[in-house]
């Protein structure tokens, strides 16, 4: 694709091999913790907050947000799956990893009940587990754990709709040899604020596939994080976002290669249009000294459809061992410009159809790669609808 970078975009990034001045895990303002009090209130210049408009977080970051809102969680699970609502003290909570920033810790400190969804060992689901998270306005804190026993296989679809100011942690504990695919769709109303940490602990020889689809909301900030509990694990992280007028959509990924012979593949693609549309993508991959035989690649591509949109795309790859299979990253932001529009129109194609053609083409490969037919269908429909609403 065209590598022309629109005004107001950054695509810096780095590959650091050994002895980096500021290792990825040290670039945060406080160590990970379950307790919100361990994090200072961010002022906006911290590395992990510098792209986020704090004033639009409605107090999720500074302790002023009170959980007075309504959030409905509906779980529709096939037979064999256990769905429980548990208290804060439940020992199954917090195993995938600690909150890494103040809002995640706030969510962890403030939620009242958590959902634990378990797929027992060796159980292979043929139907997806569907989780509907529907905001009914106001502030909410949530916690969910999705756990697969050894060699279990499941597809979990989480749908976020309605209006909410939601801070949440979602944990994925993937047992040895298990296969979990999670699709998280952020289809919020225009006003919603959604800040969440998705923490996955990938078992030995297990596979974890995450598909993050962000369309709606005023501000969405998601942090998918991967750690490996043993060798041979695999993580595929896919993301697709469509950022419109005034929306802030931020995806911050961290893959912590701390076990040998694990793989990770990250592909995020976003289209932006309209005044003040802002997409942020941070891809941090750390290959620790113990992680021999690691194979990792991460890619972020953005398509800017109109003036006034901004992209910040920052891949970071840090390598502490030379004994790896492969490691790479790429980031590119291209523009759908007037010349492309003219060319297509000069072949009889109306402007809105020309734009659709380009956007569909841009996402097509990724949608295919996701490889879940009913999700594919939905994504394409959703992309059409976004284009319809904005171009129409």
């Amino acid at each position, binding site marked *: 694709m065209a590598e022309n970078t629109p005004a107001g975009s950054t695509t810096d990034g780095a590959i650091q091999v050994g002895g980096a001045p500021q290792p990825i895990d040290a670039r945060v303002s406080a160590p990970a913790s379950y307790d919100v009090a361990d994090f200072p209130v961010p002022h906006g210049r911290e590395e992990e907050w510098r792209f986020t408009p704090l004033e639009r977080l409605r107090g999720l970051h500074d302790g002023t947000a009170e959980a007075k809102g309504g959030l409905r969680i509906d779980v529709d699970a096939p037979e064999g799956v256990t769905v429980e609502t548990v208290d804060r003290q439940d020992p199954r909570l917090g195993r995938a990893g600690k909150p890494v920033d103040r809002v995640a810790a706030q969510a962890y400190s403030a939620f009242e009940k958590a959902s634990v969804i378990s797929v027992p060992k060796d159980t292979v689901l043929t139907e997806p587990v569907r989780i509907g998270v529907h905001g009914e306005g106001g502030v909410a804190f949530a916690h969910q754990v999705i756990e697969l026993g050894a060699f279990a296989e499941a597809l979990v679809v989480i749908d976020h709709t309605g209006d909410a100011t939601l801070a949440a942690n979602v944990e994925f504990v993937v047992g040895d040899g298990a296969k979990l695919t999670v699709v998280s769709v952020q289809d919020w109303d225009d006003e919603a604020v959604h800040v969440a940490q998705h923490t996955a602990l990938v078992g030995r020889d297990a596979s974890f596939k995450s598909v993050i689809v962000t369309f709606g909301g005023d501000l969405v900030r998601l942090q998918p994080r991967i750690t490996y509990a043993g060798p041979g694990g695999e993580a595929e992280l896919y993301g697709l976002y469509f950022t419109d007028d005034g929306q802030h959509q931020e995806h911050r990924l961290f893959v912590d290669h701390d076990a040998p012979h694990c793989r990770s593949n990250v592909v995020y693609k976003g289209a932006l249009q309209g005044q003040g549309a802002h997409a942020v993508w941070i891809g941090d991959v750390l290959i620790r000294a113990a992680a021999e035989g690691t194979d990792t690649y991460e890619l972020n591509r953005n398509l800017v459809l109109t003036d006034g949109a901004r992209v910040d795309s920052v891949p970071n790859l840090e390598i502490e061992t030379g004994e790896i299979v492969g490691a790479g990253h790429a980031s590119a932001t291209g523009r759908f410009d007037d010349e492309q529009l003219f060319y297509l129109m000069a072949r*009889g*194609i109306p402007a809105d159809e020309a734009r659709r053609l380009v956007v569909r*083409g841009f996402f097509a490969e990724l949608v295919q790669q996701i490889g879940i037919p009913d999700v594919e269908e939905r994504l394409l429909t959703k992309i059409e609808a976004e284009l319809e609403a904005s171009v129409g």
Partner: protein
Amino acid sequence: MATLEIHDLHVSVEADNGPQEILRGVNLTVKQGETHAIMGPNGSGKSTLAYSLAGHPKYTVTGGTVTLDGENVLEMSVDERARAGVFLAMQYPVEVPGVSVSNFLRTSATAIRGEAPKLRLWVKEVKAAMERLSIDPVFAERNVNEGFSGGEKKRHEILQLELLRPKIAVLDETDSGLDVDALRVVSDGVNRVRESGEVGTLLITHYTRILRYIKPDFVHVFAHGRIAESGGAELADKLENEGYEAYVKGGATS
């Protein structure tokens, strides 16, 4: 019979120091079945004419008229002009990432023909047209113009010409940058379309070389934003021998 009439066309572009007039009263009538060569030195305004006919937003028409069978072309949007039958093979075709040639061709043919071509026939039609232009079938799955060589881009333009069958084809320096083999392939493509008798061709070129393969009915010398002289094919021979010198000097003060 389709007729394109350009009357006293004046066109400006926005330059650093305000609008700059590039076309200064172009008069030209192109009828279906005719081939007009427009020849002129670099910077004389040939591409400006081509883009203005296609409706590129960068060019502002400040005076004159363009009609196709009496319809006001200047009032049409870019896509409407294309659907009305005006085709522009561009001097510098644009890369369109994410859109495959096959998808592009089909979308475009659907728009121009007013209905989606029947899939089976369409596939055959495209395949045959690509073969005639020596375009490797793998190009169908490549993104439009992305990573194409200069010659491949030009062949891709002529492929579209063959598939879209316009009433008026404007070919802007389709010959530039082509080696002799590619020039022959491209010219054969243009001639196939011309032989149908259904297209009026405006062949814009800097060199006389292509006129050995595509015989024009009329030759116009373009200088300083207008047609300085018109004649038959023999005018091209004169240009071949004498160059544009006379026209460049002649117009310098106008």
